[in-house]
């Protein structure tokens, strides 16, 4: 199940690591997560649900969906998709007895006091850290629950359009490693550490946990930037919880970051840019793409991406969707059918496609919950991808000193996320100690972001931002009069 040949990526796997899955000895590589190591060993089913015994596997691959949880070294409910594989690990499924064997040790407590805490080390978070470090003499901390920095950039093998400032012409993976190097100069970095809560203790305060190492961090911060990204949307159809039904990003993660194939042949639901790019990346990794289905009458993504995929003989069915995933313990096929004007399936148009995975590429929802816990008012704004934290042009939310940037603020793309991160950082910096050239820096960043949001493809983002700003100022006025 490992990717053997790839036109762009080279997987220099580390040393072999021995681990145990339900008592069976297996091997993975250094750098694998538990989930990718299991996958490389052909294990798709990670367990069964406690009550209805439905098979479970991973879906999102980035620690957001909780579908991949297993018992690891006696500790229950470990998210295997973001937990690095270690020598001798005991990985178990279907364990629902009391964690008697859990090796409880009193967690180590560490307190920190920083100027700017950034939650999330993706493009927005890293850009914010770099910008803050460049313009001011402040302490910056990035906290991320993944084993490495880069967020979703580390799985983007395609070249970016965007603006040259944000690395257009380069591949996401290249941008990620350049930014990481830069960010490490300016910021302290806590990886594999989950922020579990925001608390106002007279000052901004974050509680964070490194579960496997057993460390609790108590972090006091002057300003906080939430660059917490997004999570993949799900689709309702029969058997949609079977292992082998993945988020598009989940596939990109195991394939492009860890060099593990999601299966032999699959279909993709959604012909937006993510679906189209994923199809091409699957082909590059030597995985068959049997079809792309799109509920809309038209392909949503860029023409160049669609053309590339079509050239490789992948059929794109518009006005089609998935009815059912077929299979007992994991996906063995998919039934797709045509949709009528009212989005109902047209009976008699069903097609069965043999495949061992189904990729869901139907968009993202901002992860704004931590910001909400920090007091940011949220509102449902369709154009922005769902419930979003209201914020102003400086990315500050309705809670003083709490910022949001990137996909967490509204669903856009990496270049815009980086500029948003920078704007948030500069504003945070300026309110800690005023910058002499604040206006000029912001002006430049503003110009950059509006050029990114030009034209037809920027329309949705422009509309979303308008409504977010509107909501923010409405909220401020409401607070004053109330």
């Amino acid at each position, binding site marked *: 199940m490992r990717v053997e040949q790839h036109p762009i990526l080279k997987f220099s796997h580390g040393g072999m690591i021995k681990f145990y899955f339900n008592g069976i000895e297996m091997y993975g590589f250094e750098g694998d997560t538990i989930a990718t190591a299991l996958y490389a060993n052909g294990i798709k089913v990670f367990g069964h649900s406690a009550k209805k015994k439905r098979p479970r596997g991973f879906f999102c691959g980035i620690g957001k969906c909780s579908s991949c949880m297993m018992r690891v070294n006696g500790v229950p409910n470990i998210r295997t998709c973001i937990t690095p594989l270690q020598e001798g690990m005991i990985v178990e499924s279907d364990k629902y007895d009391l*964690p008697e064997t859990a090796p409880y040790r009193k967690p180590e407590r560490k307190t920190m006091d920083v100027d700017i805490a950034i939650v999330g080390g993706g493009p927005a978070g890293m850009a914010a850290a770099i910008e803050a470090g460049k313009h001011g003499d402040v302490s910056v901390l990035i906290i991320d629950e993944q084993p490495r920095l880069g967020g979703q950039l580390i799985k983007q093998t395609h070249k970016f359009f965007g603006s040259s400032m944000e690395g257009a012409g380069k591949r996401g993976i290249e941008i990620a490693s350049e930014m990481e190097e830069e960010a490490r100069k300016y910021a302290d970095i806590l990886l594999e550490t989950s922020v579990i809560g925001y*608390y106002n203790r007279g000052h901004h305060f974050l509680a964070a946990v490194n579960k496997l190492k057993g460390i609790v961090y108590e972090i006091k911060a002057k300003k906080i930037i939430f660059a917490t990204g997004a999570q993949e949307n799900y689709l309702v159809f029969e058997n949609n919880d079977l292992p082998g039904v993945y988020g598009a990003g989940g596939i990109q993660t195991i394939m492009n970051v860890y060099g593990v194939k999601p299966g032999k042949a699959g279909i993709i639901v959604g012909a937006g840019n993510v679906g189209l790019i994923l199809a091409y990346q699957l082909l590059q990794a030597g995985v068959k793409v049997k079809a792309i289905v799109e509920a809309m009458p038209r392909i949503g993504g860029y023409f160049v991406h669609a053309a590339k995929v079509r050239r490789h003989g992948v059929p794109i069915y518009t006005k089609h969707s998935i009815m059912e995933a077929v299979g007992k313990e994991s996906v063995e096929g998919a039934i797709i059918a045509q949709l009528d004007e009212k989005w109902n399936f047209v009976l008699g148009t069903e097609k069965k496609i043999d495949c061992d995975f189904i990729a869901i590429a139907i968009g993202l929802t901002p992860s704004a919950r931590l910001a909400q816990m920090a007091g940011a008012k949220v509102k449902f704004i369709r154009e922005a991808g769902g419930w979003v934290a209201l914020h102003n042009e400086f990315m500050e939310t309705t809670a003083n000193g709490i910022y949001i940037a990137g996909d967490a603020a509204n669903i856009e793309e990496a270049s815009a996320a980086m500029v948003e991160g920078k704007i948030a950082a500069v504003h945070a910096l300026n309110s800690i100690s005023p910058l002499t050239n604040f206006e000029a820096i912001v002006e430049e960043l503003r110009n950059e972001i509006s050029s990114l949001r030009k034209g037809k493809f920027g329309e949705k983002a422009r509309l979303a931002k308008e409504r977010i700003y509107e909501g923010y100022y409405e909220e401020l006025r409401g607070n004053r009069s109330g």
Partner: protein
Amino acid sequence: MKSEADVVIVGAGINGCALAYELSKRGKDVVVVDRRHIAAGATGRCGAGIRQQWSTKENALLAKKSVEIFEGLEEELGHPIGFRQGGYLIAIHDEEDMKQARKNVEMQKSIGLPVRIIDREEIKEIVPILDPDGMKAIAATFCPTDGHADPFKTANAYALAAIRNGATFYKFTEVRGIKVENREVREVITDKGSIKTKFVVDAAGAWSSRIAEMAGIKIPNKPVRKEALVTEPLPRIFDAMVISFRHGIYFSQMARGEILGGIPSPEEKIGYHFEPTWSFLKKMAYMLGRYAPILKGTNILRQWTGFYDVTPDALPVLGEDKNVRGFIHCHGFSGHGFMIAPMTARLLAQLITGEKLDLPIERLSLERFEKGTVKEKSVVG
């Protein structure tokens, strides 16, 4: 919106919903108004325990009558309420506790409760994960007919049964004023319209003093922020609710296996403070680990806050106001509203329809605060 009703109830918590049912059963035209939705306030945030072990006979009797209703409630309402009787296990920490416990048990037995004092061995038999040393418990009292119900299901079941009887619920509707003329309730004014009525019931929980104020009535209630948390689901271990009046802790295992509990937060605050605290999380985790060491590695899924509507003696205020006719007090439950709601609702329905009351409620009138009262000792959370 309806322009007229026999009774307008403010608040769709457990008390508002239960009263709507009891009144609609008696043929009254009832309207329930809530700023949010059913069980959005304290009801949906509570520990949902049902306890009969009280320190005064009146309270114990009220709770016992409530349990009798709970026992047949699913059948009566026609909807599930998740009621089960796993008992309440109340820690006794020292000789002083023991003295009070003996007194309580004697009184509770006299009204027919099957309560008894159990030793440290039996504590572990009833709740195998408890560590009496960590609890610092020398014994406990246990009443097997105490229990638990699902607060969302129960409130909803009452509401659905009330609607079936003709009651109307206006959700996301805010009361803006209460018109009083000649010391009589005339009209309830909301942001969606006005309803003429002779009776308005203040069942607004932590916001009850704001509603009373609209009718020119001052009540001594204070909203106190309380916190709770829930762990990941565990296999079924125990059925009882474990509590300690000394430590203020309570916890039990829910239907899906998660442990739900609370303890007074070191940052406990009076006023409308919604934010959960880090100090609560730490204190509760620490105490849970002391009471049940095996839970030390367990993940906490969620923490949240809610409000106790607290009176000076920690007892509810029930009955018609002495100065404003038709204004019915149904508040001040001080953290125990859920467990006694079936009975308090029945009593208030009897009062409003002029029936004979099953239990006297004069001792719970608003006027008692002028004379000075005895505080209920058996309080947790």
